């Protein structure tokens, strides 16, 4: 009576997405998988469910190998999953959405459906009845006729769980069910998970929200770059250094650096009261369709200053930067130098001086050479300005001139980051939004990166630095905003970065929420 993945290896082309990962879920148990972005959590789900093929290893249900079966057969055998981004039909009603989970239990087929035979009708009535019961269990009965597209993400995720339950699964796989949920919604979800477990359903959970995970899980597995880093009881695993490193980036490993005099220095240098901010964001809420990912965030960026946005993976940092740049749908007001820009499309905001450097150097074109990439970014400059810009960049990024004819994809991670920054500066930004510039970089490059960002700030540019790596942020930040679950969990000066305990609490969302 167990669901087991044994030595599961999954490859996508030459990339090893999962490397001999084993995991086991017992009926009535809540097992969780945590790990940073790209650690292979979702791939593990896909492999178990049949959405991704195995290179080697086995998936067993009660000892029976099921990894040769197509996905829908595994579902019929009692496996069920939810999706990280709920896959909904916005037009469908809540009732119909939940009912969909019960369709596979139909014994009667097409003819019964077309002719509305008594058997077909009684089966349909049975499914409808069960749907109503599930709606009541989830306390969603009042929403039965609401359209899915009109609901907040928390409700949609609950509905997704209800849909999974309709199939009477023996094992249920929940992919980041708590992302974007309010605390009340998280509590409702926890209750639902606990009830499922008490009814003997095995629950496998992938989740970024660590507090949520440790509250509900019996067992925890840490994945890191496709490998199992460790497993055990949540309380025990969270104390292990390898977990802290994987989950919080290099923050813990470099805790001493965070407490270095430099951080204190920066904090002291930063004026207590910020001068008139260059950019003001008020109550910014980012959303993907009906799914809100960060809520009512206020953010002021001074001219020539660095605001660090910190938080664990999935906290909503990138979405907030996306909202400011106009690439992600948002509500709330954004003012740049007294001008409202929140109504403008992304390219107009860019012309106004908002420049976004996405994570993993997403603004560079990998197949094009360094020179071509820069030309693209500099296409709007007049001849004179172009010469000046080139000289400036050459001085700032000597390494790029050496490699000007290499394709961008052949550069090292550090060089790519320099190119990304050079391209951003070519647009003459007033506000620079940097999303995890240290991601995937060797610590040796941090010094160069720090010097470059300082030079940028020195030129009077306001910088918003979204980082998972608190130690790096500590070197530069004038102000620190910590985001957990899409909300500001702490707003403070850079001195916090020396206080490891408090920082960890804020990361995990344990600090009291900022008063609205």
């Amino acid at each position, binding site marked *: 009576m167990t669901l087991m993945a044994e030595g599961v290896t999954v490859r996508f082309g030459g990339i090893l997405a999962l490397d001999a990962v084993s995991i086991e879920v017992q009926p009535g148990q809540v097992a969780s998988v945590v790990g940073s972005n790209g650690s292979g959590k979702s791939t593990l789900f896909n492999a178990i*469910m049949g*959405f991704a093929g195995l290179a080697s290893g086995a998936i067993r249900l009660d000892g029976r190998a099921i990894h040769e079966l*197509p*996905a*829908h*057969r595994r*579902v*019929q055998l009692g496996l*069920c*999953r939810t*999706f990280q981004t709920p*896959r909904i*039909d916005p037009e*469908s*009603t809540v*009732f*119909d959405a939940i*009912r*969909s*989970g*019960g*369709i*596979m239990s*139909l014994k*009667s*087929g*097409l003819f*019964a*459906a*077309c*002719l*509305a035979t008594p058997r*077909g009708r009684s*089966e*349909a009535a049975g*499914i*409808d009845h069960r749907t*109503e019961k599930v709606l009541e269990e989830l306390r969603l009965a009042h929403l*039965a*006729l609401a359209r899915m597209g009109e609901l907040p993400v928390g409700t949609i995720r609950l509905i997704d769980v209800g*849909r999974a339950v309709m*199939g009477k699964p023996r094992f249920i796989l929940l992919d980041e069910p708590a992302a974007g949920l309010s605390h009340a919604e998280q509590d409702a979800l926890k209750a639902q998970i606990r009830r499922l477990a008490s009814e003997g359903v095995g629950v496998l959970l992938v989740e970024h929200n660590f507090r949520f995970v440790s509250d509900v899980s019996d067992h925890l597995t840490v994945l890191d770059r496709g490998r199992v880093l460790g497993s055990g009881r949540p309380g025990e695993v969270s104390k292990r250094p390898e977990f802290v490193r994987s989950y919080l980036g290099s923050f813990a490993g470099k805790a001493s650096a965070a407490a270095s005099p430099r951080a204190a220095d920066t904090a002291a240098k930063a004026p207590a009261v910020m001068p008139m901010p260059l950019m003001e964001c008020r109550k910014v809420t980012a959303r993907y369709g009906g799914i809100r990912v960060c809520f009512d965030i206020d953010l002021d960026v001074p001219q020539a200053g660095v605001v660090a946005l910190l938080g664990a993976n999935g906290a909503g940092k990138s979405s907030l930067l996306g909202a400011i740049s106009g690439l992600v749908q948002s509500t709330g007001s954004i003012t740049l130098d007294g001008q409202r820009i929140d109504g403008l499309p992304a390219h107009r905001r860019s012309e106004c001086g908002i420049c976004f450097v996405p994570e993993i150097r997403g603004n560079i074109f990998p197949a094009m050479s360094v020179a071509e990439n820069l030309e693209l970014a500099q296409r709007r400059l007049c001849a004179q300005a172009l010469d000046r810009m080139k000289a400036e960049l050459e001085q700032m990024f000597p390494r790029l001139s050496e490699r000007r004819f290499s394709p961008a994809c052949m550069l090292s991670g550090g060089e790519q980051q320099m190119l990304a920054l050079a391209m951003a500066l070519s647009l003459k930004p007033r506000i620079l939004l940097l999303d995890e510039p240290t991601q995937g970089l060797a610590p040796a490059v941090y010094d160069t990166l720090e010097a470059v960002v300082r030079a940028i700030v020195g030129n009077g540019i306001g910088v918003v630095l979204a980082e998972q790596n608190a130690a790096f942020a500590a070197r530069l930040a004038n102000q620190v905003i910590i985001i957990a679950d899409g909300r500001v969990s702490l707003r403070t000066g850079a001195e916090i970065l020396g206080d490891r305990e408090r920082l960890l609490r804020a990361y995990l969302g344990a600090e009291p929420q900022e008063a609205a």
Partner: protein
Amino acid sequence: MRRRPALLPAATVVALAVLAAPLITGNLFWLDTSALMAVYALLALSVGVSFGLCGILSVAQASFAALGAYTTAILSTRYSLHPLVGLAAAIVLPAVFGYPFARLIAGMSHLALAVATLLFGHMLDIALREGGDFTGGYIGLSGLPPVPGPDSATWLHVASWGMVALVAALLGSLYASPYGAGMRSVRNDPMRATADGIDIGHMRGVALSVAAGIAGLGGWLYAHHVSYLGPESLGPAVSISVLLMAMVGGVSTVLGPIVGAVALTLLSTLLPGAEAAGMFYGGTLLLVLLAAPKGLTSLPALAGAQRGADAGKENGR
């Protein structure tokens, strides 16, 4: 609870057909138009099942109809079998063909699948032309017996719309059933449907099979009404126009394709200007698709939503 009204579309069809009967009785032109309208309605319903319900963008509906039409034509002219035998064969043969055909092509993307069905149409077209005496070649088959029943033009009206109403009734039940909901979820999101434990390949096969059977019925009606059948009669051009009819009426409802078939047939019959009629036709189509992207049958709902929004605004004030 919250059942879709399963028999409402069929009842609407019956009511309209009865209302129209006294207006067109005795007028052979309109009786002929009425029967052709019913043929188009059946083909558009076939689009509704394959594309509207299950998401298979097939541009071969007329070819399925041709398959049915030629089956009954060959059976009744070459083997002198009763048209009712032909009726069964005209439904079953395309339906039996539709299932494996769908399993073969349903994994393709929308566009590739549309092209594949179009190619099937062309292959069938060539086969019919090159079929020699068996299919009548370029000349086609003529002298088909009329639709069985009393020898009156009004009977044709009754029989054709009776068929449409019957299909609408069956589809109404299907659309309202959980089985139909399963097909709809294959259309909306195949991955989601798989995660719900639905065998999407099988569902698509069933949907196209049903669609092909309905098209075959349309083909049968066409063959015995017109009593002549050539390779041009139910060619790829017809496939495209019935696809348009279904889209204009509202492809995801039962009534939509029927409304579209009636509206567009009326439009092309009533539009002035002989040579320029195509221009008016195209323009009207474009307007309808712009004003009601989900089809004419979505207009009441759209108006309702607008009223709701206005009321909301007033409350806001």
